[in-house]
Every structure is written in C-alpha cells, then in structure tokens.
C-alpha cells in the first residue's frame, strides 16, 4: 500500500458516466485529486456529487469510464480500493442504538486494529465526545452525530477520505467545527474529496474546486484560477456591516471555542493497524 501511494494522484476519474434509465446523472466526469490535497466537488442538488462519491467508494458501478483510487481500479479491484479509503456519507452513518464509544469500537474492530480502546478514547477526546461517550447515539444532536461520524471515518488513519456534504443540516457552530476537522485532516497529509453545495465551504477548505453541473465538470482549478475566469475585480466602497453569521456567533458562540479548537490535536492519529 505504501509503495502504491508513492505513484500518481490519489484519485483519477476519466470519462465517468452513470445513468438511471433515462436520467443521465453523470455524462463524462473527469478530475484528479493530488495526494494530500482537498478537492471540493461543488454543485447544486442533483448535480451528481453523491453518485461520484458512491462510485469512488465502490458502492456503485459506473456505466463507462475509469475511476482509479490509490492506483486501483474501483470496478476491477474494489477490495484494494476499500483498504485506503473511508466514506462519510450524506447521512450520518452511525448506529443509533449503540453508544458513541461502541460505535467507534465497532469500526476499530472491523479495521482489525490492535488495542482499539486507547485510540477510541483519544478520538472521543479530540472530537469533544468524551462526556457523551456512554450515551446512546439516538440522544445526540446533529452536530455530535456528524462529529462521531467523521471520527469513525478516521479510525485506522485512511489516507483518502470522502466527505459527502459533511455540513448539510448543521448549525453554524457545528459547521465551523467540521471545517476545523477537515483542515486538520489535510494538514496531517490525508487526501480529502469533499462534496458541497455551499460556495463558502469550498472557498474555505479546498485546494482545488471542481464545479459539477448536469453531470459534467464545468471548471476545475484553484480558487484564484476560478476567479480569473471572470473580469478583474473593480473597487467599490461598501459600508462594512457585520454579517448575520458574525452576530449569531458573537451572541451564542462559546468564548473559548477558538482556543479549544486550537488546543485539539492536529494531524494524523497514531494507529496500530496490523494490515
């Protein structure tokens, strides 16, 4: 796995198509994600973002085209693709009846980690879930579920993570927490493919942005490159008003939130994978 990861981009997609009867969801999608970078797949609802993620995570077979993850073809070598990846789907993939800790232990055991207990405690701490660890997930808020979901995806230190609309349905505070986590992942060298319908999310997080529209990639580039597609900026004088987000966060935000976020461990999780 290490030897493979030295070669080529983490994800390469060429001419990917997928249709459901008359509905052509993907009409030839091409993009690449360099190792250790964050690509945001930006698109409105129904653009085909989830379909791309499902194909890349071996849950769905494409009609045509090639998708290579970590050097392995998703159709011909799905088992090899599943080893380095982790999927955080659109809906939190957590078990409601189990506790937060049990959910993490479940994934750690399925990844055949030795001594999963220590790693799980560390993740609970990192994602501020220690106090809720013994509670059933059914009692968790949306933000807590999402944090647990992402923590579960990080077990075993997968080098490639898919995040399908990770902040949809979250309140602003929880959204900032998720952004923080994604940045930490990338700083630790993880490749992240993120889908989102929020422009600011792509702007905040991504090294490159690919805009998916009606089953095709319209443009693909860095934020600066995308901005050059439009006429150069003109200078206008606008009264600086606080945004509603500024007001909301000033009123309800925990005063020590930034400090606490900075204190959290950044980067890769030490693991003891035996594979």
């Amino acid at each position: 796995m290490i030897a493979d990861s030295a070669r080529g981009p983490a994800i390469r997609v060429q001419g990917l198509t997928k249709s459901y009867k008359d509905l052509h969801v993907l009409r030839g999608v091409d993009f690449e994600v360099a190792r250790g970078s964050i690509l945001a797949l930006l698109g409105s609802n129904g653009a085909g973002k989830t379909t791309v993620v499902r194909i890349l995570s071996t849950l769905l077979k494409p009609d045509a085209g090639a998708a290579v993850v970590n050097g392995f073809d998703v159709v011909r070598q799905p088992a090899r693709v599943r080893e380095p990846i982790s999927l955080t789907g659109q809906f939190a993939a957590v078990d409601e009846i189990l506790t937060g800790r049990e959910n993490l232990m479940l994934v750690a055991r399925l990844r055949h980690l030795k001594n999963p207990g220590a790693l799980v405690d560390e993740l609970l701490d990192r994602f501020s879930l220690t106090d809720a660890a013994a509670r059933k997930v059914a009692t968790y808020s949306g933000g807590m579920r999402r944090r647990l979901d992402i923590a579960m995806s990080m077990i075993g230190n997968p080098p490639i993570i898919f995040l399908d609309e990770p902040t949809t349905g979250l309140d602003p505070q929880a959204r900032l927490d998720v952004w923080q986590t994604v940045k930490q992942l990338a700083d630790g060298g993880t490749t992240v493919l993120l889908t989102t319908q929020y422009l600011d999310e792509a702007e905040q997080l991504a090294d490159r942005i690919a805009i998916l529209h009606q089953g095709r990639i319209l443009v693909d580039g860095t934020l600066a490159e995308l901005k050059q597609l439009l006429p150069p900026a003109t200078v206008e004088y606008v009264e600086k008003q606080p945004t509603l987000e500024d007001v909301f966060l000033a009123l309800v935000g925990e005063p020590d939130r930034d400090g606490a976020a900075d204190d959290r461990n950044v980067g890769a999780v030490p693991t003891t994978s035996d594979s």
Partner: protein
Amino acid sequence: MNTQVERITSRSFTHFLGDTAVLTGRSLRHITRSLDTIITTTVMPIAFMLLFVYVFGGAIESGSDSYVTYLLPGILLITIASGISYTAFRLFLDMKRGIFERFQSMPIARSGVLWAHVLTSLVANFISLTVVVGVALLMGFRSGASVLAWLAVAGILILFTLALTWMAVIPGLTAKSPDGASAFSYPLIFLPFISSAFVPTDTMPGPVRAFAEHQPVTSVVNAIRDLLTQQPVGSDIWTALAWCVGVLLIAYTVAMATYRRKIS
C-alpha cells in the same frame, strides 16, 4: 503460488469469522437493548396457545392426553415465523441508514453483514422459544423425551429458523417500507393453521387436507411432536429435514444473489 493462495484464503476466512463476530455482537446489542421486540414476538404465540388450550381445546379431538403437548410444536413454529420478521425489519433499517454503506465501503468480509443478522436471529428466536416453552410448562406441558430427542428437536428448530431467516433476508434487502419488510411473515404465521399443528388433518375436507398433509409445517410439527411424546418418528423427520434444507438452500441462494445485486 498454491500456498500463497491458500494463505490468502485462510486469512480471509479468519477475517470473515472475525468480522461476522464483531457485527453479530453489534446486532445482539440491538436485541438486548430492545427486549420489547422479544416480548412482542412471544405475545402472539402465547395468546394462540392460551386461546386454543383454554377456549377451543375442550372441543378438539386431538387424540392426545394433553392438548397443550399436542399444540406446542405448532406454536413453536409460529413463534419462529413471527420472530424472523424482525430480522427483515432490522436489515431494512440498516439498509436505509448510512451504517450499511459504511460497512460496504470498508475492507471487511461483505457477506458477514448478512450472517450477523442471521446469527442474531438464531439467538433471538432461541430466547423467545425458551419463553414460550416456559409458559407451556406452566400450562401443563410435560415431556419424557430423552436428551437425544430434545437435541433432535433443537436441531430441527435451528434448521427451520435458518431457512426462514434467510427467507426474511430477501424482503429485508428489497422492501420499500418497514411494513413491507415485515409483512411477508404473515402468511408464514398462518401456515401452521392449515396443518396438523392444531387439529388432526383427517377431519379436513379433501383439497384442504391434501394441502395440509403435503406442506412443510405438517411434517415438521409431526416430527417434533413424535420426538416430544416419545413416539417412533417414522418418515416425517426425513420429510421435515428435506423441506428445511431445501427451503434453506433456495432462500440462501436467492438472498445472496439479491445482496450481490444490491451492493454492486
């Protein structure tokens, strides 16, 4: 080369066992944390047992000393039929929620996901069957059957549960609604009524009797009844085993094919 292949095969088989054990542990927690599902599973068979023994039983000529003893095998099958609908229901919920996709995108033995539900069904049904037999004992059920005969009864019940559970996997994978996932078990619950479970088949009119005598429940009920009442089991046990194994193989094949189509 050959040894390498063997090593990989044995490693993946160990992984299959390990993964299945972990996933079974998970779904067993679902059972122990919602014991009400076990109670609802046993309420209906126990109600039937009370109704038939204390209301209709006096008027039924079963040709047996104790009607509750005569009735119990059929009640046990009804218990299993109502129990396996929860397997379909739980599998359906897993499919609908993201957790199923998480498992499918992980490097685990994929069939372990189904086996975990099937093994959990065996445990859950064992608990409900124990509860039902306990109630039957209170109602006067007695058996002088040997340990070997009881083991044979347990073996038949396990095979019957396995066959019906793999059948339940199919609607669990394909249903569009939770009601649809569990509704398939209703005909299975009523199948024992047109069998030798409650009354001897020879009082039934021609076509009904022909159906009753040649459907699987009758041979299974007769085999268990003979074992419990220390009668010679005759050919019924072989017919019963053939039905169970046949249904099991077909249900398993169809369920696995459905699963592969669903996840690819």
